[in-house]
Structure formats: structure tokens, C-alpha cells
């Protein structure tokens, strides 16, 4: 083990710094404001620091390490040029308060991204302000809320979500102050229009739904659902977590949605960084546009004087919509993520449809390959499709319920068995409507060979003895972690007092 707090290499000094500037009067603070006790931080020399974090990195699994079929998370390859671009001083070393003439390049990239996202989603206006998917949801729900307040429709206090929705949907709407109405899905996981009709009324502010849904199935009744909600006077909200499946094929606008968030860290390859940063822009139809938060990049012809700073003969500027809800993050959103995703989008351009087609091709191919291998090995009775369907979209679900019933192998056991074979496990136990669920999303950046091999390994795991799977994983940096112990014996920071780690 390497422990950060066990290092004390560069005693007294860590990283060597230039001398403080000489002043006439020495810098001083009143005693009440002086720090009395230094933080118990370690002091690492550079070689120790590099080795510690390299050691830690080897105990972590990323897309670069291996196949990462984490359903709903769209773990595609992150092109490295994006990282090179994000470290250029023209993005890393700029300040949001510097004037527009000093930010023309970034503004033009924002403008281009707004236009592209509007085109892909069928929305009218886009803001790049929200910094994560959940924040995009919250932002759009706030816009809808202010829209109704301005119309005097204060009685719209409810937001409808299907029971298969991502947890962030109800959490975001509740944070804005809405009451949540959850409606059950049909047996095949799709939206139940009768259940929707039963709850959509003059108290409905919005319905939040993702399509393809969380089972990876296209909601064919989506236009009907939009009509039901619109007829009741509500707005339709599209959770863009699954946008990777539909670019250039269909769009939320065509399906009747009024607002959309995009997870740039899923669809447009901002690396997820072990939990973030992300970026969660939103797009809306024109009725909601006056409520969007700034910044939004606008564009007009440059004046003669402005041409000196212009990047393309146009002048880009920040604008704030008339009835803006205000800010949800203090600055211009996650500009670094926006620039990375711009680089990614430029790689595909009008070929984004091919990207989505391959995401769907790979998901369906893998689903077939797993069934085919299972049949050949005689284990197809151990699982079933999470929902009956001919085709899936970018992801699919399997239920391990039969294996659980027959031999006591749970979805979690299979997940841990896959870890031992060098894979990241699929998403497990989500969506909640599928018992013993495994949700598998290969993305478009995996080769056929990887998918074939994974299917074989998946089936081999099912052929393992239940006992061996309960023991899995055995080849990982640590074995099954006791989460109950962690919650009952809370240790949320280094307990220096007992010094037991060093």
C-alpha cells in the first residue's frame, strides 16, 4: 500500500517556490486572523508524489484499461487530441471576466456548439451554462417553472416521471419545488399511455422522460405521450442521457419535446474523470428561450474596428435572455469540457449519424452474441431479456432473475465475475423495473472482436459454480468491499490520532 499521509520526503518544504516579493511594510495579520495550527498535510517530494499517484492509478479501471459496458453512461473512447486542445493557454489560461474582444475564439466555439446541439436536437435555443446532466435537468425545469409563472399558471405543481427514469429526474424536479408523480411502466418497460392519461391534467407542469428509455428501447408512443402532456397544458422534457443512440436518426424536437439536456460527457466524449467533470447544456423550443440562463453566445457582423479581433468577420458576444432564471453556475459553464466536445464533434460533423448507427449496431450485435454463446453453452435458461424486443437501441438489459432463482447467482455475482476477467461490470440493479438487472452499453468505439470475446466471457461466468462467483472477484486490487462496515464504522478522513495507517 502507498499512503499519502505516510510520505514525509521533502521535510519542511514541498514544491519549491520563488521567494515572496519584498515589501516595505512586512505582511501581517491581527492575531485573531492568524492561523494557529497548520493543516496536517504530508509533504511529498516530486518523485514520491509521482509514484504515489501512479500506484493509485494502477488500482483504477478506465476505458483505457479495458471494455467498459456501463449501461446509461456511454463510456466511449476519449480521443486524446481533446486533452491536448484543452491544455492550450487560449482555454486553460483565460478568465471569464476578460472582455468579449479577448474571447472571440471561445465565443465562436460556444456559438458553433449551440448551433450544432440545436440542429441535432431539433430545439430552437441552447445554453451551455449547466455543468452536468442533473444540473441541466434542474435548469430546464426552472425555465419551465418561470414560463408557467409568467403565464399565471401557478397551479401546475407536478412533474410526471416514469418509474424507470434516472434518479436525477425526480431529484431535480423536487429541488425546483415540484411534487413528483411517478407512473408505472408497462411489462415491456415502455411508457403506459393510460397511466399517463390518468395523471396528466391542469396541475401538470412537465413530463420528464428519456428516449430510448432506460431499458434501451425506443418509445414508439412518444408522439402520443407528447400530445397527452401538451393537451393537458404541460411541457415535455427530454433527458439526454441516451442521446448517443439517435443522432441524425430522430430528434427530441421531432418527438414533440420542449426542452432537452445533453450530457456532453456521454455523447460528445468529455472524459468522465472518475466522476466528473461533465457538461450538461440544455436546448429549448422558442417559448422557453426567454428564460434560459446566460451565457449564450450571439453573433452579428463585425464593425470595421472589431475586425481586428474577429476570427471570421463576425462579432460574437455574450447575451442574457429577457426573463432569464439567472445563473446555475457562477461562470460560463464548463468551458474546458465544451472545447473538448467541440473537438469531438468536428471529427464527425455531418457524420454523427454514423456514430449513432454504430452505437446501436454494437449493442444489438453484443446482445445477439451473448444469446448465441449462451445457447451453445446450454446456459440460456439462466437469464432473459429485460424486455421483449426485436431490436434494442444503444444499450440493452438482461435479467439474472432465473439464475438467482435456480442457483443463487445474482446480477452482482455476475458483475464481480466479469471484473475477474478484466472487464468493467455493466450497470446493475438499474432500472429498478427489471429484477436482477444488468444494463449493457458497449458504445460505438468497441471492435467486433472485443464484443465477441466479451460475449464468450459473459457466458463462461454463467458456467462458473455459484460458490466461486460468490467469492469473486479474486484478481482485483481488493476483493468485495464491505459497504455495510463502511456505513456503520464511518471513517471519512485519515484518523491521525490513532495513526493506524502508517
Amino acid at each position, binding site marked *: 500500500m502507498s499512503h499519502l499521509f505516510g510520505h514525509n520526503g521533502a521535510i519542511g518544504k*514541498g514544491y519549491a517556490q520563488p521567494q515572496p516579493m519584498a515589501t516595505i511594510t512586512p505582511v501581517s495579520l491581527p492575531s485573531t486572523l492568524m492561523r494557529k495550527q497548520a493543516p496536517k498535510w504530508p509533504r511529498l517530494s516530486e518523485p514520491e508524489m509521482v509514484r504515489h499517484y501512479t500506484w493509485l492509478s494502477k488500482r483504477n479501471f478506465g476505458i483505457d484499461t479495458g471494455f467498459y459496458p456501463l449501461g446509461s453512461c456511454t463510456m466511449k473512447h476519449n480521443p486524446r487530441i481533446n486533452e491536448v486542445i484543452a491544455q492550450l493557454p487560449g482555454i486553460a489560461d483565460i478568465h471569464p471576466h476578460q472582455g468579449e474582444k479577448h474571447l472571440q475564439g471561445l465565443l465562436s466555439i460556444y456559438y458553433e456548439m449551440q448551433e450544432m446541439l440545436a440542429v441535432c436536437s431539433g430545439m430552437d435555443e441552447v445554453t451551455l451554462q449547466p455543468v452536468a446532466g442533473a444540473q441541466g435537468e434542474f435548469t430546464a425545469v426552472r425555465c419551465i417553472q418561470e414560463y408557467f409563472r409568467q403565464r399565471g399558471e401557478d397551479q401546475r405543481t407536478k412533474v410526471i416521471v416514469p418509474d424507470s427514469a434516472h434518479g436525477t429526474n425526480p431529484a431535480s424536479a423536487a429541488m425546483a419545488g415540484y411534487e413528483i408523480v411517478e407512473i408505472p411502466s408497462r411489462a415491456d418497460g415502455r411508457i403506459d399511455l393510460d397511466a399517463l392519461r390518468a395523471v396528466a391534467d391542469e396541475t401538470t407542469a412537465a413530463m420528464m422522460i428519456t428516449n430510448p428509455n432506460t431499458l434501451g428501447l425506443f418509445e414508439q408512443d412518444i408522439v402520443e405521450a407528447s400530445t397527452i402532456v401538451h393537451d393537458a397544458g404541460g411541457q415535455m422534457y427530454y433527458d439526454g442521457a441516451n442521446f448517443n443512440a439517435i443522432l441524425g436518426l430522430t430528434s427530441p424536437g421531432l418527438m414533440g419535446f420542449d426542452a432537452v439536456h445533453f450530457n456532453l460527457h456521454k455523447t460528445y466524449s468529455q472524459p468522465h474523470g472518475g466522476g466528473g467533470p461533465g457538461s450538461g447544456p440544455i436546448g429549448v423550443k422558442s417559448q422557453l428561450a426567454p428564460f434560459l440562463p446566460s451565457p449564450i453566445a450571439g453573433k452579428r457582423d463585425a464593425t470595421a474596428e472589431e475586425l481586428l479581433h474577429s476570427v471570421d468577420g463576425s462579432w460574437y458576444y455574450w447575451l442574457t435572455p429577457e426573463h432569464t432564471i439567472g445563473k446555475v453556475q457562477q461562470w460560463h459553464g464548463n468551458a474546458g469540457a465544451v472545447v473538448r466536445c467541440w473537438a469531438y464533434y468536428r471529427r464527425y460533423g455531418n457524420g454523427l449519424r454514423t456514430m449513432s448507427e454504430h452505437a446501436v449496431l454494437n449493442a444489438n450485435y453484443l446482445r445477439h452474441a451473448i444469446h448465441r454463446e449462451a445457447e451453445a453453452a446450454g446456459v440460456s435458461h439462466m437469464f432473459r431479456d429485460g424486455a421483449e424486443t426485436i431490436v434494442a437501441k444503444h444499450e440493452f438489459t438482461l435479467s439474472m432473475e432465473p439464475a438467482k432463482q435456480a442457483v443463487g447467482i445474482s446480477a452482482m455475482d455476475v458483475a464481480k465475475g466479469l471484473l475477474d476477467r478484466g472487464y468493467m461490470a455493466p450497470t446493475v440493479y438499474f432500472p429498478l423495473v427489471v429484477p436482477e438487472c444488468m444494463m449493457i452499453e458497449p458504445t460505438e468505439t468497441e471492435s467486433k472482436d472485443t464484443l465477441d470475446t466479451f460475449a464468450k466471457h459473459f457466458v463462461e461466468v454463467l458456467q462458473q459454480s455459484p460458490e466461486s462467483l460468490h467469492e469473486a472477484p479474486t484478481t482485483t486490487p481488493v476483493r468485495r468491499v464491505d459497504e455495510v462496515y463502511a456505513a456503520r464504522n464511518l471513517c471519512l478522513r485519515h484518523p491521525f490520532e490513532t495513526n493506524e495507517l502508517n
Partner: protein
Amino acid sequence: MVDQLPNLGREKEMLAAMGMESMEDLFIDIPNSVRVQGQLPLPDPQTEEEILADARRLLGANTNHASRPSFLGAGLYRNYVPASVFQLVTRGEFLTAYTPYQPEVSQGMLQSMWEFQTLISELVGLPIANLSLYDGSTAAAEALTCAVRVHGRKATQENTVYVSELTPPDRLSVMHNYCQGADIQIKMLKHGPDGKVALTSFEEAKGSCGVYVEQPNPYGILDEGLTTAKEIIGEDTALIVGIQPVSLGMVEAPGAYGADMVVGEGQPLGSPMTCGGPLYGIFACHKPYLRLMPGRIVGRSVDVDGNEAYCLTLSTREQHIRRHRATSNICTNETLIALMGAMHMALLGPEGLQELALRNMSASQKLKEELSNIAGLNLPHEGPHFNEFVLEVPGSANSCLEYLDSQGIFGGFNLQEWNPNITNQILVTTTDQTSLSDIQMLSAQLRNWVNHKGVKA
């Protein structure tokens, strides 16, 4: 495009394995009425080389802060991030991982974040820190709603919090957005002409759920009065202190003067400004807030063999379990930027942090000394300051900043953007990256401004 899709050209073969003939067979479930007709109206794909060339040209058109003296701060600070931080944080195992839901193969990030929690806890003097919120503004906003969840029942000023009236409008706007859903009323804490909180306004805040102040405050002032705030507001009102983390190398940790929650923009430790994102929001608190706080947290545990191991814990507060009853909707956070922060902190050590704070303060002191020699300029707030202070100029701040800009200097932040009634004040910031020649250039140009361009009676 072609270098990103390994199965281009293998479509037929893969489709055949599924008994399909064309890609269209995969989309039979999408009704024609909602299909996109034709190609997306977007430009043709580019190669990596072409994209890099465009990026260099466009981003090169932005004025970067290494290219000229800059005195812009106001919440984001130019700093030096050691080279090893960038080298390590772009290791694919960190960079390309998802949230550590499978702890057995995510020990690297989990342990790093547990160490980060310890570093932040020690920095601010509170026992608990989460592994980051989006930025300083959302951390402050979430602290306010958390204060109401914790103190709501006992509060005599129901659903009410008090926030320093100097809080920058954009940060305040985030607070309003986060608070309005729970019907939380935000009242203003008054400041005196010296820029410090009027102690009487802490009396007013008594009985509310929480009080939000900043140290250093948005004018860069270090306010001694804040160290007595907790005594005044009492146990049943949360004291929330917003900090600039580097300042804590010199300035007392808020935990030591009674803060219940500490929040702030982590950026000056470990992260470049990146035009305001991605950053990381610091969130730390005392035990009574633990089970109602927002965000992820890592706990140390053991594996089945009894070996030390780490995992996410207290997840029942979070949206993926608790759904609409979650303490926050946050899911994706800023883990990787927090990791950069941890690396920077580990390299600095306690003495290095103190030195870094001293460099910031010394540069600011030096600039004050230079500017106070220039007749016609005024520094309205007496010290102490951390690394920024208010400067009053003759004429308008706007014209003065434009003049400085024309001379190749970012002269600071026009405070008219925070308060439309103030037209002659500039917030001037120095950091560890401010050089003596930067200060000399600014002083010389301000002297010029006062003598030749300023408004004279």
C-alpha cells in the same frame, strides 16, 4: 471519424450474424414520422490535424493571461499548477473512469478522494468534507439548503437564511435558484463603509437557519468580525464561511472560529482558470450536517479478506437511491479536478501552502504600496487584505480599464458589474503569478491615467 469507429466496413458481417441485411433494420422501431430526413446540416468531418489547427487558431485569438500583466481575479485566480499534476491527472486510468460504483477496480480514485477529503478537512478545520460539488457558487447554495434541512425545525426565523450583501450577483443568483424550490427566503447581511460585516446584522440573523459570509470577502478584505459571528448567532444557526483555499495558509481556518460549514472555489489549488470551468466546489461540515449534506463521500472499509479498502458511503442521501427525497440532485461532480487539487496540496505541504499564501499577500501589499504613492488614486478599505483590494480611480472605472487594456494590461475587475451605482471602483488582484514588473507596469500606467487621461476638476 474513420479512426474512431473500429467496425466501419464490418457492418454487413455483423448484421448478417443477427439475420439482418441493412443498418435500417436496426431502426425499424423508430416511426417514420419522427425520422430525420436527409443528412444533418453540419460541415464535413475533419481529421485530428485539421481540428488541432482550427483549435490553435481560434483559441489563439483569446488573450491568455501568460501574454500580458493581469490583475483580474474576483473569484478565479491565476496560479501555477506544477507540471507533474497535469502529467498524472491525464493518466487514462483516472481520466477515463466513471464514478467508482465497482469499488474493487476503483480503489485508486476512491483512495485519492478519501485523501482529498482529509486534505480539505485539515485545510478548513472541520471533520467532514465531500469529494466536491460543481463550483464555489453551487457549494454555497447547497450549504444554504443544507442549513435549512438541519435547523429548519428550531428556527424562529422560519426558512430564512442570511447572506452577505457583498456576495457577487452571479453567485447570489445561483443561491436563489437553488433555494426557491424549498421556499427559502434569502435576507441580506449588511456591511459597514469599511467593507466589513456590521456586527449588529449578525444579531438580526439570530434564529435563522444559516448565515453565509466570505473570508476573504469579495473585496479581498479579511474581516476579524467573522471570528465572533458564531458566538452571536448561536448553536441553532449555521455559520457558513466561503473561503479562498490558498488564504488558509496564513488565515485562521474557519473551523477554529466556529464555522459549521465551509465552502469555496477550490480552483486556486490545482486547477487552471479555464474561463470558469471545470472547477471544483469545496464542501466541508460538522457532524450534525453529515446525513443531510449533498454530494458523494468516500469511506474507508475492509474487503472480505480484512484488507484496507475504500468505497462510496452514505449513498442513501443521494438521488440514485433516494430519488425525489435526495439531499441534492448532484450525480456527476468534479472528481478529476478535485484530484488535481489533492496532488497540488500534497506537493505543497503545510509550509508550502503558507509560502504560497504569503506570495499572494506580499504581491498585494507591494501593489498597495506602489499605488498609495500615486496622488489621485484611493484605496477605500483599510487592510488587512488577502490578494485583492478595491481601488478608486479618477474618472470612470470603465474608461480606466479600457485605457489599461489599450496598453496591454488586464487592470482588474470593474465593480460596476456587481453594483451599477459604483462607477469608479476596480477590484485589483495579485496572485503568485504577479511579477514585480507587472506591478511596475500597472503603477506607471495608472500614473499616466491620473495625470493625462483622468477627469480633472
